[in-house]
């Protein structure tokens, strides 16, 4: 995509994460380069969402390291807040703030976190709503929007912080089939603009078309990693083949 040599933005080094007696991540090592779109796929419970949540410290890790821009995630809360400002996150269940309009949902980050004046934050929010095709819904409460519209507002909300990386946690899994396309289109456009993206997804067509690299998870480990052509057309491991076979993937 770019001629510049790859510069790792996110590095996972032997990340281990346990929940009680359950080990969600068994030493995952991975790099995400600047401008790269990496899709994490794999069965439910394989650890891909957990890895995403460890990326911005929503889940603390048990051992290993997560580095952002070459620096390990800080343990000190205030420093961690500052790192999170540079990463946008989109959730499966949208998590829009139901008591605020679409516009205020997008403007709230710049206002509360960056201390931006309200009028300026609203201008930025309006431009972003326009970008995701929802300028006409600026005054609507989330409850009045469809799932696809809510998720597009959520993407705009994350973009309002002008993040260096976007993390997507199964952004279309809670959507009606007819609204999935509009969300994927927004994500595709974002990828085309050169945004660094880590996407946990079950949308194999999206992974195939948009990802620079696809990483297959199983039981808390990376089974295979490579360009989409390799993963989907010539998978190197049987476990990748099995997983795609279960999805009815024909290649």
């Amino acid at each position, binding site marked *: 995509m770019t001629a510049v040599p790859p510069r790792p933005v996110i590095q996972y080094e032997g990340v281990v994460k346990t929940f009680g007696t359950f080990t969600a991540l068994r030493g995952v090592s991975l790099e995400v380069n600047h401008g790269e779109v990496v899709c994490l796929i794999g069965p439910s419970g394989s650890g891909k969402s957990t890895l995403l949540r460890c990326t*911005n410290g929503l889940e603390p890790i048990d051992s290993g390291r997560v580095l952002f821009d070459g620096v390990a995630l800080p343990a000190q809360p205030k420093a961690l*807040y500052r790192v999170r400002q540079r990463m946008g*996150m989109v*959730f499966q269940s949208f998590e829009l*703030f139901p*008591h605020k309009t679409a516009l205020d949902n997008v403007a*709230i980050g710049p206002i509360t976190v960056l201390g931006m004046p309200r009028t300026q934050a609203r201008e930025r929010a309006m431009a972003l709503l326009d970008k995701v095709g929802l300028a006409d819904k600026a005054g609507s409460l989330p409850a009045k929007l469809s799932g696809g519209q809510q998720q597009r507002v959520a993407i705009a909300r994350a973009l309002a912080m002008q993040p260096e990386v976007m993390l997507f946690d199964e952004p279309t899994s809670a959507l009606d089939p007819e609204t999935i396309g509009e969300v994927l289109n927004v994500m595709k456009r974002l990828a085309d603009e050169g945004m660094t993206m880590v996407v946990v997804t079950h949308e194999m067509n999206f992974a195939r078309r948009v990802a620079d690299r696809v990483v297959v998870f199983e039981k808390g480990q990376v089974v295979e990693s490579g360009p989409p052509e390799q993963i989907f057309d010539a998978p190197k491991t049987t476990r990748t083949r099995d997983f795609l076979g279960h999805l009815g993937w024909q290649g």
Partner: protein
Amino acid sequence: MTLQWSVVWDNWPALLHGVLLTIALTFTTMAIAVPGGILLALMRLSPIRPLNLFATCFVELFRNLPIILVVYWAFYVLPVLTGLSLSAFATGLAALCFNVSAYNSETFRAGIASIRAGQTEAGLALGMSRSTAFRTIVLPQAWRRVLPVLASTWVSLFKDTSLVSVIAVGELAYTALQIRSQTFRVLEMLTAMAAIYWLLGYPQAKLVDWIHRRMGVLE
């Protein structure tokens, strides 16, 4: 038996003063017990053990004692305990605040717990601190959910202020009962007292119903 309603009209300035004091007690108690309740709820949700323990003891103590007992207790024990000589009004206010804060704390705790963790996480993911996420995202939503309960507490409190009459706070109940014992017009004064409480309380109850309907439809 002849009724002499003139006793009510003749004493209206005193009764009005009583009404104003009742209203003042209700407002002041709530003004203290709402932040007090939020604070106690946060302490109970806090992982810091001493805070948690203190709030739990406070809530479980005052929620399970009759208010009238707390009023007496505040009147006799508080001055000894603190060395302060509080006015009857301040003593009654303190007793009501203890009780209502304990109730409000449980109300807020339930309201805060009803907001799913993803909402806080969405705030954190934007780079908010925990306290900013709580103030701007969790609390406003919890507030809407608990408003009907708070309104019901308000109406109960309005009537319960009459309990501080036992330590001679000159609110409506005390004033009416005083006039009763000075004039021996028992039936007239009790009827007047009932009418005044009802006339003031009924619109508040209607307001609560309205809040229930308004807030019920959110999300």
